[in-house]
């Protein structure tokens, strides 16, 4: 994306000193579903501009954590502070307005809509013209539509999905759908991007592309990224800090190196072999 | 090429009301066939006809009306077989100059020919029907209704609501009480209605029902112990098929009729001889002579006589326009002798219409189901005009005002 996304924050975003203030602080979150403790007393923070990974075995509560931040789930306990504002429970709309975007593990695309419409819908928050103008589609409404369309086209170029613009997303192969999902999130021009297994179901080449997108977004616009991923290669390579969850509890937090050497993490998640040599290649 | 006169037949042989619609439609068609077969048409003018299925649906009825109104030399009057369709085509008929014949249904105020030039509610309306029912009840009660409780259980639609103004007027005048029990169509389940009736114990129940509501109501009356002898049904709820299957359970159930359904007259014999024996009957021979079938034949007969009357004026042996046939409707004069000659002598009362009176006759009588067949229970009553006429005036004046119709003067 060559042009303005969200305004780079106070000049500090670029290389050099990468991370800044604490942007998001999660304090003592607990979440239960009936008898299942999905999250137990989880606390961690995310700094501005960093790439923060959340890892953990299946069912550890990673997706649930994102859902709490997003306001999809209401945790029974704990508080979430975003940009200095503290919430017990956030409502999805507020979260979106504050600049948090999100992709989904199980693909929550709008199946009946085209790629273009899916990504355009990410910009709906920014649309100002009212119903009547939209119905008449004259003057400001059209101008607005074109202006957003331009922004979306840049995202489409960036993600290299030009050829599928008008295809209904339901017909795309899985990997491309993941990309559209990312596109929709990017269209919101978020300050913070929550990615739930964005690289599942991709081969190495495609994962590399995806990493590229994530890194570009992170570096060029200073967008903070929270990333859930099972591919340790990716996590180790691109993240700044890693949280490890297991059975709803936090068992590790630190730089990739620290986490990789944490015995709890090795036992619960990585397995002895995986920690000693990266899973991809030899 | 001999002249031909086109008769449109709006019918419903399918849908909710088919059990009534089928014999009715058969009767209408059979009589036209009979006239063609026996008399070679009306003064040599062959009757042609075409059925159009409405399924009792107003929109479909409108489509049928539009489709058939200009056929031949013009449709010779429509019998829409439905109150809803009548409403929908009344205005159109006014513009198209086609007569609408609604024997025993339609708008009660359309008796007034000065306002409703094109409508012919021949033989009776729901107001005359309600009036005659009350007369019969009064007679049973020794002449007066004072202090009685009368319930109206009705199909909750314009059709079922028609008698209400008259009932209320008479109740106020004669000191009896009317209570209203609407039944939401189709009326398959009427327990609450009949529980209320069981609780309030009205002396009589007037039953303005249609279709499946009728057997459901009779069954429920039976199940809640309300005597069927105290029920008076409108003519659309008093056909054979309404009670046949209930048999003894409906014993005592009264219905009003505009004709002697029970009677087998010459027209039935002719029909058998000229139509059914030749294998040209429209329906099963068993339905000939049932109430609905006979009513269908009467309706066609009235139409044929209107055509005949109009031919007297506009030229015998000619095919007439819709507008000309209307004149015939307005100048019907079927005396007892004429009816006898037509084979309807035993079946119905004389009919005479005029510019201001589009009903022609308002006599009716009560029949009762004896568990196996209908029995004539009363002599003919004529509707009491004292309450009906002012109502007709009032309602047709309102209609004229709403619609910007300038009443004609009949002279």
């Amino acid at each position: 994306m060559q042009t303005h996304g969200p305004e780079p924050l106070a000049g500090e975003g670029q290389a050099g000193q990468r991370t800044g203030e604490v942007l998001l602080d999660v304090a003592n979150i607990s979440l239960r579903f009936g008898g299942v403790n999905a999250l137990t007393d989880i606390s961690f923070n995310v700094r501005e501009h960093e790439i923060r990974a959340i890892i953990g075995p299946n069912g550890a509560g990673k997706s649930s954590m994102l859902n709490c931040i997003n306001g999809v789930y209401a945790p029974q306990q704990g508080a979430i502070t975003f940009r200095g504002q503290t919430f017990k429970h956030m409502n999805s709309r507020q979260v979106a307005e504050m600049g948090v975007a999100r992709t989904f593990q199980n693909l929550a695309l709008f199946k009946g809509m085209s790629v273009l419409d899916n990504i355009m819908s990410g910009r709906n928050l920014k649309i100002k013209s009212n119903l009547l103008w939209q119905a008449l589609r004259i003057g400001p409404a059209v101008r607005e539509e074109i202006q957003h369309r331009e922004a979306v086209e840049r995202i489409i170029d960036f993600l290299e999905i030009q050829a599928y613009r008008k295809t209904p997303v339901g017909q795309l192969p899985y990997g491309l759908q993941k990309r559209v999902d990312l596109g929709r999130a990017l269209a919101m021009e978020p300050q913070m991007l929550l990615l739930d297994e964005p690289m599942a179901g991709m081969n190495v080449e495609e994962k590399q592309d995806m990493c590229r997108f994530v890194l570009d977004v992170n570096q060029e616009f200073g967008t903070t990224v929270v990333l859930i991923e099972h591919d340790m290669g990716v996590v180790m390579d691109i993240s700044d800090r890693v949280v490890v969850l297991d059975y709803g509890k936090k068992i590790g937090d630190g730089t990739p190196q620290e986490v990789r050497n944490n015995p709890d993490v090795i036992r619960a998640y990585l397995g002895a072999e995986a920690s000693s040599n990266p899973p991809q290649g030899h | 090429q001999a002249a031909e006169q086109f008769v449109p037949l709006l019918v419903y042989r399918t849908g909710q009301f088919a059990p009534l619609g089928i014999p009715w439609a058969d009767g209408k068609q059979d009589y036209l066939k009979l006239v063609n077969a026996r008399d070679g048409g009306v003064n040599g003018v062959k009757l042609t006809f075409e059925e159009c299925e409405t399924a009792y649906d107003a929109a479909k009825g409108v489509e049928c009306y539009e489709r058939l109104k200009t056929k031949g030399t013009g449709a010779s009057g429509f019998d829409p077989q439905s109150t809803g369709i009548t409403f929908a085509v009344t205005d159109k008929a006014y513009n198209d100059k086609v007569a609408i014949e609604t024997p025993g249904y339609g708008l009660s105020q359309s008796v007034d020919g000065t306002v409703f030039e094109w409508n012919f509610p021949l033989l009776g309306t729901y107001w005359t029907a309600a009036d005659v029912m009350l007369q019969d009840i009064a007679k049973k009660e020794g002449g007066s209704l004072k202090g009685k409780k009368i319930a109206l259980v009705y199909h909750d639609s314009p059709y079922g609501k028609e008698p209400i103004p008259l009932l209320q007027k008479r109740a106020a005048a004669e000191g009896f009480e009317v209570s209203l029990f609407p039944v939401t169509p189709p009326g398959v389940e009427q327990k609450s209605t009949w529980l209320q009736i069981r609780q309030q114990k009205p002396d009589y129940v007037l039953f303005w029902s249609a279709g499946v509501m009728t057997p459901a109501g009779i069954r429920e009356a039976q199940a809640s112990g309300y005597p069927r002898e105290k029920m008076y049904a409108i003519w659309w709820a008093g056909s054979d098929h309404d009670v046949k299957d209930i048999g003894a359970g409906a014993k005592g159930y009264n219905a009003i009729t505009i004709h002697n359904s029970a009677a087998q007259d010459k027209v039935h014999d002719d029909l058998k001889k000229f139509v059914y024996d030749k294998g040209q009957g429209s329906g099963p021979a068993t339905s000939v002579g049932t109430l609905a079938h006979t009513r269908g034949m009467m309706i066609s007969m009235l139409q044929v006589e209107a055509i005949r009357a109009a031919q007297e004026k506009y030229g015998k042996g000619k095919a007439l326009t819709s507008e000309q046939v209307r004149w015939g409707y307005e100048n019907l004069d079927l005396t007892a002798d004429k009816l006898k000659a037509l084979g309807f002598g035993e079946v119905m009362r004389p009919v005479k219409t005029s510019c201001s009176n589009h009903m022609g006759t308002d006599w009716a009588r009560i029949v009762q189901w004896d568990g196996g067949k209908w029995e004539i229970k009363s002599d003919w009553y004529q509707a009491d005009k004292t309450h009906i006429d002012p109502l007709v005036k009032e309602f047709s004046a309102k209609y004229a005002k709403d619609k910007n119709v300038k009443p004609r003067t009949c002279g």
Partner: protein
Amino acid sequence: MFYRENGQFKSSYSADLALFPVAQDRWAMWGLLAVCFVVVPFVASDYVFRAVITPFLILSLAAIGLNILVGYCGQISLGTGAFMAVGAYAAYNLQVRIEGMPLLLSLLGGGLCATAAGVLFGIPSLRIRGLYLAVATLAAQFFVDWFTNRMKWVTNDSSSGSVSVANLQIGGYAFETPVQKYLLCLSIVALFALLAKNLVRGAIGREWMAMRDMDVAAAVIGIRPVYAKLTAFAVSSFIVGLAGALWGFVHLGAWEPAAFGIDKSFQLLFMVIIGGLGSIAGSFFGAAFIVLLPLFLNYVPHWLGLSISTATASHLEHMIFGALIVFFLIVEPHGLARLWSTARQKLRLWPFPH
């Protein structure tokens, strides 16, 4: 071969955002409109206008309204008849109670009242979904049926509960003949179809579709379910109410509550499903299918010179109609509109198979 996009390059986003980006479509559309406004009035008979085209147009409009709700926003409604009734009766009351009320304002006023009713009955949709929501709309249906039957003032104290309107005039111009009425309907339908199309391809349309396809994800990107659903109910009921007013005023002229009964609701739902959920053009296809096919089937025996009884013909008609519905669904579950676009896609590739 005939349908090539080659050489048509879009050089601006506004060109790509145009209603019909492909030139052939654009011409076809102008052609169609020209035929409808100029040619049809001269060739069709009164019967065709009154019994075929006018009802088709009005029901198409209602179907568009419903399609917005069901097809675009994913809220199943079985109360369309009720909203049509509200539109019709409200317009009627405006017309008879306010001296000199312009016809167009009455019609629009009918639409607005329907909007209010639609929003009211749409509130449960915030909690209830899918087929369960059908209950809320059915409640609307039966309640309005009852209300129009029971409240005398609704029908201006008409004794029988049926009402009628006469003298349709706009600015002194009377709409009396079938052709005039047809043109009135055509203009209104064309205008509202365009407005509806604009809405569904704009931001609000995307909100509706997002709610339909995946409401949790929609909420996460900042779409307010309350706003999206209620606007869908509002816009939908407005159009449906307007169609209802037209149905009463222009098509029927006089009507009783049964004219807007549950049958109408079902009929309209069938139209949008058969035509194609989430497609404005589909609403027209669906209305054509449901309105015209039975008429057509009705004529077939005549054309073939068969003399079968009315009842048999009518039963056969039902059977064939039912069978055709199933047949079309098998060929294309997403409705006639999708079938049409697949056909177009084939044309585009023709003569190559793929």
